[in-house]
């Protein structure tokens, strides 16, 4: 089967790319998903939409993506509930937080430093210590990640994109164009986009490419909202104790880990342990959060709320997150007409509207017009080589 553009990956990045390509008039696009739509990272993300990033490019993309989520129906044609419940951040690193939000304010992102009174108006039970700072990002919130991914899929299909689920890519190679072999058949495409999340490094490895990507299992748990517990109706990032929460329906709260380099701390000097290198991780094996981790989450919550006595865990999961050494994505044309998007580093979903746009422009114009993609180029890793 011959195609103009073939996209590997039916998650938020792959389908956002398909949508943006089709939306700009590109024809003859095929998306291959090895399982079902949003079955990978997109179906397991907490889907928090926020803008607090120390990396300016990422903050800009987060800003533009948030705006995209706000006008999702206008942009995509399908309704999406964007629960703009706001984000409260607590940290003991006052100076670095203040300097970060000052820089982000210059990008047009709204922040408020909360004092006792304003904090009480948001949550009267949240304890913030004297050596900590509390910041509020009013525009932040969360969406339904599966609905979002499906909406990109539906809008793409409306514009003629073909999506095939349940077809796993076995190998890719180059002849006149790109040849993609799956478990079922062989495809030829003029241009190939690999946006397959944690599977991306493995897919491109048969070209001799060894991407600097590490797969880290990130524990998440869902707890039952205790009876009469009216706190945490907003997104909460506790940078002091390193966890986040967000409301979940019905009557639940999602709790997950915040890695310092994911959001508020420089990744300079970060060297991931080689045991997490993509080539050493079996992605077919799924993990569960262990008791010790869940206990630490619950202790973290009790550290903030005196009125949280009984906490019931509903379920837990531990999906892989594909990270890079600097905790920023890789978006690049790595060989002629071969584009990769991976290494989302924990902020992939919230950036998906604009990442899809960036990749689509790389494919069409060889350059991302909406925002410069160079900071995400693979070339930033000097050691990276074929």
């Amino acid at each position, binding site marked *: 089967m011959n195609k103009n553009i073939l996209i590997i990956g039916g998650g938020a990045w792959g389908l956002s790319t398909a949508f943006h390509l089709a939306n700009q008039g590109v024809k003859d696009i095929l998306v291959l998903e090895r399982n079902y739509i949003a079955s990978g990272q997109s179906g397991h993300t907490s889907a928090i939409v926020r803008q607090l990033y120390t990396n300016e490019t990422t903050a800009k993309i987060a800003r533009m993506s948030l705006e995209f989520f706000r006008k999702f129906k206008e942009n995509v044609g399908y309704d999406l509930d964007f629960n703009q419940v706001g984000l409260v951040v607590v940290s003991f690193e006052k100076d670095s937080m203040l300097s970060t939000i000052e820089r982000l304010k210059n990008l047009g992102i709204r922040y408020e430093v909360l004092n006792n009174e304003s904090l009480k108006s948001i949550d009267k039970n949240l304890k913030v210590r004297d050596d900590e700072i509390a910041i509020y990002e009013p525009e932040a919130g969360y969406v339904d990640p599966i609905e979002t991914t499906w909406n990109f899929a539906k809008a793409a299909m409306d514009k003629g994109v073909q999506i095939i689920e349940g077809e796993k890519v076995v190998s890719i190679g180059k002849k006149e164009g790109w040849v993609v072999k799956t478990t079922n058949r062989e495809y030829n495409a003029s241009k190939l986009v690999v946006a397959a999340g944690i599977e991306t490094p493995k897919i491109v490895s048969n070209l001799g490419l060894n991407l600097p990507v590490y797969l880290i299992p990130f524990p998440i748990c869902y707890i039952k909202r205790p009876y009469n517990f009216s706190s945490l109706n907003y997104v909460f990032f506790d*940078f*002091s104790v390193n966890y986040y929460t967000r409301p979940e329906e019905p009557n639940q709260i999602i709790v997950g*880990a915040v890695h*310092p380099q994911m959001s508020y701390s420089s990744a300079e*000097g970060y*060297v*991931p342990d080689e045991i997490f290198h993509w080539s050493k991780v079996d992605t077919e094996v799924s993990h569960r959060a262990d008791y*010790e981790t869940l206990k630490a989450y619950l202790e973290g919550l009790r550290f903030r709320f005196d009125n949280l006595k009984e906490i019931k865990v509903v379920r837990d999961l531990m999906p892989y997150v594909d990270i890079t050494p600097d905790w920023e994505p890789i978006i690049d044309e790595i060989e002629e007409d071969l584009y990769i998007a991976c290494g989302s580093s924990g902020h992939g979903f919230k950036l998906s509207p604009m990442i899809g746009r960036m990749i689509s422009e790389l494919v069409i114009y060889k350059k991302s017009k909406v925002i410069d993609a160079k900071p995400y180029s693979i070339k930033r890793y000097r050691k990276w080589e074929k």
Partner: protein
Amino acid sequence: MGKVNIEGNYFVSSSKEKVTELLSNMQMISKCLKGLEEIKELKENSLSSKIKISEGLVRGIFNLEANLKKDLDNLLIDFKLYGTLGRAEGLITLKLTQVEKNSTNISYKADLEVKGLGATLAKKQISELAEKILKEILDCFNNLK
């Protein structure tokens, strides 16, 4: 998930008796641990508290539990440091040797096991951090003597 071993030597300008006295008392050690807060229990042989760490790539408030033991000529610190980013636990063995009248060599060896997200850091970074904390305590003893 990851095992880290560190070992080295440190000289303290004090007699072996004095250093042993300091290192055998958790209350003295706790005075030299930076970032210690919310102490739940502090006895001569044990400590249970929180500790605020803001060292390079490791940042956050963690729980700390430590117990002191003596084994022949060695002092043993059995510890557990844990939080949402995982846990590090292990045993630090300190062997004290009098070098001169007012100089003691402390030979240290630590076997740590790191689990959870903390284990994603390379072993080198973890051992550097552990060594830094240990040396801070010993430096502090130099000032306390």
